[in-house]
């Protein structure tokens, strides 16, 4: 299987452990990856650029889609936010031919044209839609038996559900739980799994942002979770990076390890802690490792 990987900014910036862990896991799955950032693809705008100038964001994303079309590959994302922003842009571009033509006008200088065939998909969805749960199980060499893990999706891979085509793909709605089960983990379900991590208002209203971190992490701790897993590096930044502050602000001892989805996959595939960058988290993942029997 071949994909055009859109790694996004954060997987190589704020969460540099995500990018190598993704490459390891994809290699194991036999994916061939052509990396879009090597081909000059830009940031999606993350919804922030769109506040200022949605049109510019749509041009940037159409450009990335056109680059993927030009090499004949389907796009794989590894970030809920990248995924959502791309899906929203794609919807606007595809439902209005006039708008698409106007956007394409800005790509013509480079000889690019977006034809409307891109279907950007998160690795999470690809695992279910292309690999399949049964096949995924065959890659598991170190089942995560007894590891209690809580899912945390990230807003943009859940809402708005029409742009994410949940009607066409109902399996996307609980994709994370299905993948966790395939890896042998115990799913700790909780109502906060589809809520906001608070990251987008971190610099604007830190108190509220951190309250959200405290709420989610303490809730899963009370439910007996050993860790949380997320397909969104921005959620990771907040839930992991700001957990110390959340503990301070809420006066609780939480210490909930937060794993990136590829790290959880990697653990089940037998990679070691170092290969997955597990020592790079703010909240130590040591407890998780000892529970699955992998040396820290």
């Amino acid at each position, binding site marked *: 299987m071949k994909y055009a990987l859109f790694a996004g900014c954060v997987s190589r*910036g704020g969460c*540099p452990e995500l990018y190598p862990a993704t490459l390891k896991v994809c290699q194991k799955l036999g994916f061939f990856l052509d990396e879009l950032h090597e081909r000059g693809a*830009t940031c999606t*705008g*993350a919804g922030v650029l769109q506040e200022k100038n949605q049109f510019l964001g749509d041009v940037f994303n159409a450009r990335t889609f056109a680059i993927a079309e030009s090499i004949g590959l389907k796009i794989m994302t590894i970030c809920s936010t990248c995924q959502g922003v791309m899906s929203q842009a794609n919807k606007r571009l595809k439902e209005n031919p006039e708008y698409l033509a106007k956007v394409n006008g800005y*790509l013509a200088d480079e000889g690019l044209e977006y034809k409307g065939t891109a279907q950007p998909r998160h690795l999470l969805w690809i695992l279910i839609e292309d690999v399949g749960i049964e096949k995924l199980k065959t890659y598991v060499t170190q089942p995560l038996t007894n590891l209690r893990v809580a899912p945390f999706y990230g807003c943009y891979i*859940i809402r708005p559900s029409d742009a994410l085509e949940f009607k066409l793909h109902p399996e996307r709605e609980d994709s994370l739980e299905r993948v966790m089960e395939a890896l042998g983990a115990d799913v700790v379900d909780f109502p906060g799994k589809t809520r906001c991590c608070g990251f987008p208002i971190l610099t604007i209203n830190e108190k509220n942002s951190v309250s959200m971190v405290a709420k989610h992490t303490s809730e899963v701790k009370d439910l007996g979770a050993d860790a949380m897993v997320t397909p969104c590096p921005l959620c990771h930044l907040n839930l992991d990076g700001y957990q110390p502050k959340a503990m301070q602000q809420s006066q609780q001892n939480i210490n909930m390890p937060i794993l990136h989805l590829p790290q959880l996959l990697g653990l089940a595939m037998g990679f070691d802690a170092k290969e997955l960058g597990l020592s790079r988290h703010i909240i130590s993942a040591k407890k998780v490792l000892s529970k699955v029997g992998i040396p820290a």
Partner: protein
Amino acid sequence: MQVNISIKRHNPSAPDNNTYWEDFDLSMHDTASVLDALIKIREDVDGSLSVRCSCRSAICGSCAMRVNGHAKLACNTKLSDVIDADGRVTVEPAGVMPVIKDLVVDQTLFWDKVKQISPWLQPDGPEPEGEYIAPNSAMMDLAGVMNCIMCGACVSDCTVLEIDKDFIGPAALAKAYRFVNDPRDDQTKSRLIELNEKTGIWDCTRCFECVEVCPKGVAPMERIMSLRESAMEQGLDQTVGARHADAFTDSVAHSGWLNELLLPLKTFGMFNLGAMMGLAPIGLRALLRGKMPSIFHRSVPNVHRIRRIVKKIEENE
């Protein structure tokens, strides 16, 4: 169709243990709504069940509650769309607002927020002889917001209101958009100045919950984003949020990527030491764990093409 409805009940006059889940097994018609089932329970099974409803046609906005954890109008939610394979569905009162009894919440908070944004036209100058005339095109855009039936579904599921009751919230901010963009209103700037304050437009996390749950397509979050744009256009660009959007756009427009190291500097300003120090603990911790080293001092390949696009869009749009 056999259904099992699990209802979160609350009886304020019971001495203790007054919040509990109760299950009801019912036989319902295939086209029945959640509200039909609740009424059937109240009429035939347990007359003490409290539920608020009136129009039963998604017009009055009385029956917002959580179905399977998400806010919906009970009257326009078909049971067959929400039951699982075993015929089960859960029903709870709306969130954020305090429960009076069972599925009825106290909407005071909702109405207080709406009042807060002065939801009436404030034109300057003398009153016209007849009605105030507004161009059709301007009103068409507002029609989408005027569809709001004040049901509070968006308020129920707003992520920020859940933890901070001071936030103005989605319904009232959508209402504010309606007046900011009404050509007959002359308080545009002063409204935006107020909305630009803490608890206003910048406190929204852009989580899309309100867009997803609104039964009338009001899309409050998109109205909030549009208010942010209007505020920045009106020169209200010194809030942390506006500077964040500015810095982000600059970074992507200049290098194709997000320059994560520069972002806090630009957002808080070089000299806002307090805010910068606030970021320091995570910065230091991240540094220790080797999180910080960033590849983003270089630009994406062929960045001149990106800059060319940005320049053209700035010139044309």
